[in-house]
């Protein structure tokens, strides 16, 4: 490529991370609500809030990266099926609407709700909350996966020659979202129901981490076969230590030990910030390495 420099830098890396986190948080919150695992809807409340805050900050990063941020409305004057970015921006808008609806409806699920939350109750009279969450769930899946597909749909060989980025970012998004939700949930609720739900969250987190590892293995083999591992050259240490060991292996083993302890020995699941931080660091570095390596 002719004299190219890094075109997509920090704001885009943060956006890809927060987009995955927001999508993953919505997926977990919606599934928790649809499966009725928490009576007080705390997982849903935390998850939808994380989804909303994540996508709003992410969208602001996206706008701040524009050369002409004041013209950002130009992007929603057009809808182009052929442009992954156009499709994605509309996905972000629809996702934001669903996360707002879900927040309103989960916080205002009863007739006695006060203030703005009462609006959620009125909306639920028109559309059931679970129907909104079920549709929003598909939008959440789209958002978490699209952040990777956006990169695949370019001419950068490291991104475009592998079909695994969407799946990788989706699995990572779910994992980072659970780490976030688990931390706040654990801080707020630690009774028996809390313990049971923390166990479930940890178990699903490990599933997402294992899925991420499997996808990563397939991706590395495929990239190696087409000689594209050279793009990772400058980021080797960051990838293996930051993404794989810190973000995947340590949390996986730690979670595994905790789960065994809870299930077999009846040990309580503790809430600490170390594992969530490690997972979040790993998820962020994954986006950093992929975005930078693709433009090197």
């Amino acid at each position, binding site marked *: 490529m002719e004299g190219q420099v890094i075109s997509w830098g920090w704001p885009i890396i943060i956006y890809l991370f927060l987009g995955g986190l927001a999508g993953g948080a919505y997926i977990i919150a919606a*599934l928790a609500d649809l*499966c009725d695992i928490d009576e007080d809807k705390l997982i849903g409340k935390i998850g939808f809030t994380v989804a909303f805050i994540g996508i709003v900050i992410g969208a602001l990063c996206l706008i701040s990266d524009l050369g002409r941020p004041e013209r950002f409305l130009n992007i929603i004057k057009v809808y182009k099926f052929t*442009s992954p970015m156009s499709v994605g921006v509309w996905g972000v808008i629809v996702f934001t609407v669903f996360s707002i609806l879900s927040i309103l409806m989960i916080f205002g699920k009863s007739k006695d709700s006060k203030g703005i939350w009462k609006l959620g109750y009125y909306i639920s009279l028109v559309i059931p909350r679970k129907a909104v969450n079920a549709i929003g769930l598909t939008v959440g*899946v789209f958002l978490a996966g699209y952040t990777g597909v956006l990169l695949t749909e370019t001419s*950068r060989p490291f991104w475009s020659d592998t079909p695994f980025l*969407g*799946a990788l970012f989706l699995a990572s998004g779910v994992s980072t979202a659970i780490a976030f939700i688990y931390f706040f949930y654990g801080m707020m609720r630690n009774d028996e129901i809390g313990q049971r739900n923390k166990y479930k969250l940890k178990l699903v987190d490990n599933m997402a981490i294992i899925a991420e590892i499997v996808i990563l293995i397939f991706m590395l083999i495929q990239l190696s076969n087409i000689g594209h591992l050279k793009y990772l050259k400058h980021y080797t240490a960051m990838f293996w230590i930051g993404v794989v060991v810190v973000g995947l292996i340590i949390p996986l083993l730690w979670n595994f030990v905790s789960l065994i302890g809870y299930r077999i020995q009846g040990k309580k699941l503790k809430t600490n910030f170390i594992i969530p931080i490690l997972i979040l660091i790993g998820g962020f570095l994954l986006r950093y390495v992929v975005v930078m390596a693709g433009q090197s």
Partner: protein
Amino acid sequence: MAVRKGVLIDITKCIGCRACQVACKEWNDLPAEKTINRGSYENPPSLSAHTWTKINFYEEWDKEKNKMIWHFKRSGCHHCTDSNCLEGCPTGAIKRSPSGMVHIDQNICIGCKNCIQLCPFGIPHLNHETGTTVKCTGCYDRVENGLPPACAKACPTGALTFGNLSELRALANDRLVELRKQGNYRACIYGDTQLGGLGFFYILQNDPEFYGLPKNPKVVSKYFWNILSNSFIATIAAAVIGLGAIFTFRDRTNNNSEK
């Protein structure tokens, strides 16, 4: 509908005078760039927001004749038929003129840099002063008024030939036959099939890769199907993780509180 126009870049005729480079700057009112001696006559080192057309210099050692051969290749937008940048531009700022010249409407561009990621040749650049992406316009403002692009007009050797694209394709084929007769067996046409056919296409003296040109650049954004197929593995991953989560969340076997 207007006839599709194009430029045949015959690098076997190029002498590296860079008249095209200067003409492009003059017509488009692009500022000069401060350059340094990099041990090469080639300057500036690459295309940029202020250099939309330039001559790349390549050196090759001819073992048979025991001498250095210089190759000069004009770099700039190829005005592809299947333009990744045009299809992928989320605002519709990238347009095609009736004669086929792909250009960026500076009044609409938001500087998202998507076209930079989509172009397999690395042609568009962000102009940090305007905050918009810029590239060779194919001089559509000249072409639509019956004039050749500034680069083709300035070329003194006939290395850049402007005309109807279909006629240029025939001309390129004839030229290739002529070069082969002269014993230039490495010569080839680049841009007759790539990305649906390039509007600005080449007769090269060596393999495309020698000049940093991708042999088979991909059409990225034209088909929505591409987006769906690239989402396929993500969908499987979502289904696996989702089912695992549903199974776990619905599992009531360890609901101690409900006993």
